[in-house]
């Protein structure tokens, strides 16, 4: 058992490792990383250029279709969905990965992590701080990793319950619909204002890059392109709104499935004592994968390999698919739970997690006790309650 995390916080599906085993686990992961890094080259460069071309051609095609044929309903629908897909790929497989510096080794300024800024309201600058630095370094560490509920959702029983958490589910739905705005505002920590910890002026004073990027995105999608389309103003506007919505819902779902499924663990702040090997373990326990085909992986920006992404955030994402079986094998050897499942299974876990944490821990416990008691009853009532009790079962509690 590592000295770092209290045993209670570990998922019961994982074996407790001795410090020597932890170190060995780290060495094995390092070796996998080095072996894969040695293979990176032309093939990966070609891959990311192909992704970029896909984004550009789909954007040009869908915007032209909206502009010239937007009044024909099937054309409008196809073009809006294509634009949504284009934005999804731009944000996830291109922007997200490039901004991680996964392709910095190519020395191409247009694929350079420091320069890239993606097609979403969140400014690249802000995101490189909240995501690349804060989230990836302090993954699932309570009070530090702001991605845990983005300051507004209650995602674990270790978070203090507040009455506003009763709205956990509707709040999550709102975040899903307006996901790009949530990311954009993340750096402002609006919850500090909600909780009365900071005045609104102070919270907003950090909104410099937000204002600039939001103006740019809003003007581009909702003013420039519709106005350019002239008589096609409304179809183009509606198409752009739809495309952004599609992208928001998809991105939110993939990201929440990557970190907030049932089996994902949260950590307390023990970082100053953490070794690299323990960091790997934390990334493993704090992430979850999804099983899907090639198209699915592509559309998730390979975040269906969230575990691998978190262990190797600067490795070209197209390599995760070949690393994943290796990681899974190492995890099996060390008796560590490798959290993976279908999109539907992981999404169910997420919804359950959000729903359960809208109530205080004690309430959840007493509901559970009641359900279990009722479940012991005979007949149809018992059966119904048995079902309900099973549904209310939840790993970390």
């Amino acid at each position, binding site marked *: 058992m590592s000295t770092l995390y209290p045993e209670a916080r570990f998922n019961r599906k994982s074996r407790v490792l001795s410090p020597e085993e932890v170190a060995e686990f780290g060495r094995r992961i390092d070796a996998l990383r080095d072996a894969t890094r040695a293979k990176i080259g032309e093939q990966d460069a070609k891959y990311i250029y192909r992704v970029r071309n896909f984004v550009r051609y789909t954007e040009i095609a869908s915007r032209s279709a909206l502009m010239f044929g937007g009044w024909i309903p099937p054309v409008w629908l196809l073009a809006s969905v294509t634009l949504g897909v284009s934005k999804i790929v731009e944000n996830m497989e291109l922007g997200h990965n490039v901004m991680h*510096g996964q392709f910095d080794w*190519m020395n191409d300024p247009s694929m350079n992590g420091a320069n890239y800024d993606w097609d979403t309201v969140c400014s690249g600058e802000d995101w490189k*701080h909240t995501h690349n630095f804060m989230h990836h370094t302090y993954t699932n560490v309570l009070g530090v990793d702001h991605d845990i509920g983005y300051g507004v959702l209650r995602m674990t029983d270790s978070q203090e319950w507040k009455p506003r958490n009763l709205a956990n589910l509707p709040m999550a739905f709102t975040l899903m619909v307006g996901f790009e705005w949530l990311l954009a505002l993340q750096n402002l920590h609006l919850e500090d204002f909600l909780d009365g910890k900071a005045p609104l002026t102070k919270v907003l004073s950090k909104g*410099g890059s937000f204002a*600039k990027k939001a103006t740019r995105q809003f003007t581009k999608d909702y003013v420039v392109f519709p106005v350019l389309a002239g008589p096609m103003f409304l179809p183009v506007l509606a198409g752009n709104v739809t495309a952004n919505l599609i992208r928001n819902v998809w991105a939110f779902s993939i990201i929440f499935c990557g970190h907030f499924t049932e089996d994902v663990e949260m950590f307390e702040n023990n970082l100053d004592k953490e070794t*690299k090997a323990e960091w790997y373990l934390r990334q493993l326990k704090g992430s979850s994968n999804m099983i899907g085909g090639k198209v699915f992986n592509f559309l998730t920006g390979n975040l269906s390999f969230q575990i691998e992404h978190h262990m190797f955030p600067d490795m070209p994402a197209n390599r995760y698919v070949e690393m994943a079986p290796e990681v899974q094998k190492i995890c099996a050897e060390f008796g560590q739970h490798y959290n993976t499942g279908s999109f539907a299974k992981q999404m169910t876990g997420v919804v359950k997690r959000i729903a359960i944490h809208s109530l205080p821990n004690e309430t959840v416990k007493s509901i559970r006790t009641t359900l279990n008691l009722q479940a012991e009853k005979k007949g149809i009532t018992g059966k119904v309650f048995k079902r309900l009790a099973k549904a209310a079962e939840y790993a970390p509690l």
Partner: protein
Amino acid sequence: MKAPAAANCTWQAKGNDMQATLTSSTNYQPAAYKPHWVREDFVDFVLAKINPLWTVTRTMARVENIEYIEDDMVKVTLSTNHLLNRRFKTFKAGQFIMLTVTIAGVRHQRAYSLVNTPENYAKTGRLVIGVKRQGRVSNYLAKQAKIGDVLEIAPASGEFMLTEEATPALFISAGSGITPIVPMIQQALERSKLPVTLIYYSRDPAFRMELETLAAAYPQFDLNIIVDSAEKPAFFDVETLERICPDAATRETYVCAAPGLMTATRKIWESFGWSDKMRQESFLPIKVDENAEAQLVNFRRSQREFEAKGNLLASAEAAGLTPTYGCRMGVCNACVCTKVSGSVRNQVTGEINDQNNVQIKLCVNAAISEVVIDL
């Protein structure tokens, strides 16, 4: 993993519930962020589909000719697009261009001196570079590049050029150090009748024909090519100087050669108190100071920590990281990144930089303390 303190963050424990607030996350402010309206490479992407030389932000050049001028020296002639021509009207003799070639998916950049004069360029629209065959990019240019290839270049830069005022001049050079000097000599001869002397050491002198033609055309040009060999190397000393150029004190001196000759001339000029009358340029990578104590360097985005001895870029590469780089000698800014904390010494200027969150060039800085870099 480093404790967050290394990244200039403060942890505030709230009671004993282990909850912490990272104040840096709330105080974080990006410097002068400006979103682009249209991605510049998008415009280039579309234009280049029509003509590979049509680019707005990148500058492209077509290979017109590749010619060996000695065993390991190649002369490459490039033509540029009209946008670029406008930019290049301003280049100065003695400057270099950065040339980019993509080899196995990686864009490599190297600096090459322009060997034709700006006047010649204005007339012909051609840029001529001297390529010494050493290293990956030069080998690629010499062996694999074909006439008609389109390469990316960056506008001319470099501080090694003639003084504004025409003065009598002495040029000292050896080997491939001759490349920036050829157009400088030509320009010096064309602009005034003041004497120009060249001392040029070489085993296989490149540009001999060009230089001899100049010597024939301009009586004020004193050409001294010293052909040496591995068995009989020639050395530059005070005696040689006095023999070839007794009035060196009255001249502006330009030196471009390997470090040995550079140091020798610098010492002589220092001893005579003429240091302010000498300009130098070296194209060799910065030498690593082997004696420097190893320092712990933390690349925080890639979560890697390694021991750096001397040069940060080389140490990072030795540790298996692949930071962006270009010229590796501190002129192209490609490797610039944010140093979050720690002290570094600039290996070129000797300057010590101990401030937090400043931009530094990895290729010319050595850590002199523990350093955290935002990469």
